[in-house]
């Protein structure tokens, strides 16, 4: 990976470590999805988006909606790296009175723009934000991440249709295309097991600007964001090829790690892998 992105590499590695430790500590949460999302989230918060942790509600901030809300701990870890909250607070995840709910709650944690958790809904809210910017002549951009399993929800396609109808070129959706969901079609042949196929064709036919990227290459991710800005009158989707459980060899591409809790031993193995991998 190019050394131009050293900061991003450091940040995403730190976020990976803390999310693993927090899930282990809480004895709850998801792992596979957050690990596949973390590089895109890091690129968003450390390079792409106009946001200020000290001024989280400034009117012209860019918006991000985590439509696949079950990856909350991944987002919290990146928000902590960015300075929205203390590292220490991460360890309140999932406990009583915590601002870090199992699924993101916009009312209690600054930086969370929309409450999500029921799959399929976040993308529509992001469409509403982008539409709100358009009709009020505001210049902020809206970003949203969806899952490939989540894309089985009909509402995702309702949102896709309306975004294209209203020519929302201020909207960028990132598909975390990790080819696994919670259980899905485990045991069938690989092609049939993919949660959603022909994704480029589907989004193109809905009138979107489609860009395929490697969701673990910062160069690719940032180039995708750059190209999205060049296209007018169409929303953009970055189809990010990702690996569920990315970064931890024994978690990668294994549906069981969707929401398994690592044992003490697994945690130390995982952390060791992260420390040893100079280049993730």
């Amino acid at each position: 990976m190019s050394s131009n992105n050293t900061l991003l590499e450091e940040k995403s590695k730190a976020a990976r470590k803390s999310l693993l430790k927090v899930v282990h500590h809480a004895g709850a949460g998801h792992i596979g999805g957050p690990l596949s999302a973390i590089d895109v989230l890091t690129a968003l918060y450390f390079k792409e988006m106009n946001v200020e942790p000290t001024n989280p509600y400034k009117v012209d901030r860019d918006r991000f909606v985590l439509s696949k809300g079950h990856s909350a701990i991944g987002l919290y870890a990146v928000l902590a790296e960015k300075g929205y909250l203390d590292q220490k607070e991460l360890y309140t995840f999932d406990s009583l009175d915590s601002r870090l709910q199992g699924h993101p709650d916009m009312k209690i944690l600054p930086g969370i723009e929309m409450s999500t958790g029921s799959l399929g809904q976040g993308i529509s809210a992001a469409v509403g934000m982008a539409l709100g910017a358009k009709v009020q002549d505001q210049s902020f951009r809206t970003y949203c991440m969806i899952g490939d399993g989540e894309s089985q929800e009909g509402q995702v396609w309702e949102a896709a249709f309306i975004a294209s109808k209203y020519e929302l070129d201020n909207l960028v959706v990132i598909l975390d295309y990790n080819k696994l969901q919670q259980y899905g079609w485990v045991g069938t042949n690989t092609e049939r097991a993919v949660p959603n196929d022909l994704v480029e064709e589907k989004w193109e036919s809905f009138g979107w600007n489609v860009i395929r990227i490697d969701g673990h290459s910062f160069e690719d991710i940032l180039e995708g964001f750059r190209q999205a800005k060049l296209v007018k009158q169409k929303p953009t989707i970055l189809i990010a090829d990702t690996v569920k459980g990315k970064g931890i060899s024994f978690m990668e591409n294994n549906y069981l790690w969707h929401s398994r809790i690592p044992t003490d031993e697994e945690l130390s193995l995982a952390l060791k892998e992260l420390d040893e991998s100079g280049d993730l």
Partner: protein
Amino acid sequence: MQASQLKTASMRDSFSETLYQLAVNDPRVFVLDGDLATSTKIEKVAKECPQKFLQMGIAEQNMLSVAAGLATTGLQPWAVTFAAFMSKRALDQIQVQIAQPKLNVKMIGAYSGLLTGVTGKTHQALEDIAIFRSLANMTVLAPADSVETAKMMEWANQYDGPVYIRLARDNYPILFDDSYVFKPNKGVVLNEGTDLTIISTGTATSRALEAAKILKQNNISSAVVHLPSIKPIDQELIIEMAVKTKAIVTVEEHSIYGGLGGAIAEILAANAPTPIEFVGVKDRNSESASNEALLEKYEISTKYIVEAGQRVNLRKNSDFN
């Protein structure tokens, strides 16, 4: 006052005109349509103020979630569709993205209840009060006539938070005049009485008034309380009337489960146990037919309110009420 002798007016027209005025005068107001603009009459906004009209297509789940997103940018979306689709098709979206975060979205359930223009059970909404009032942060309103519709909408527009307004399709007797002031949390005593209290909401109130008139001819003196706000609810007035008249009839164009009757029973059971008769649709599905036929078959016409009044009056005076 006999409701049947009063002038009637279209609730839809009043809704349409008021929403148009709000859209024109309040920069925050945008109107979202689920492809029913001709039925709900929000086509007035589409035609005369098109920049404030957002067609969301036949996709109610997306429409309510988009409304939530719009609200986060400082706008005040009014999402409009049939009550049946609002309360059931888009319920999870409303719960997670509007009610829980208490966003400023106004939800209009048009064509509520049983009288939906011969569309039948797929389009009738007999559960919407029960559903909406069980959501934390939600305000649930049902106007009785065209005047109250407008007043209620003006109130909702200046209230910061989610509001569900249950509207009816047809013309209804005008019960209020222009001096009427809508207050959430306040019931309206439309008729004084000593033997029992009929408590009603929405357009069922005009039938409640007629029933009181008939009961009076039978020497039963009935108070009539209209509750335009089911949540928050005027608990004080409900208890006061129960204590005073010692018998209650609840009247609604809604299932007898979980609606106005349920809300009142909850309050009285805890505070002032009182015999109650429930006029509403029993646990069954309805069908398409004329308004008159439906009111009779599903036992919510004036006649059934009168009978409920007679029953509760007997119960009140028996040892085993």
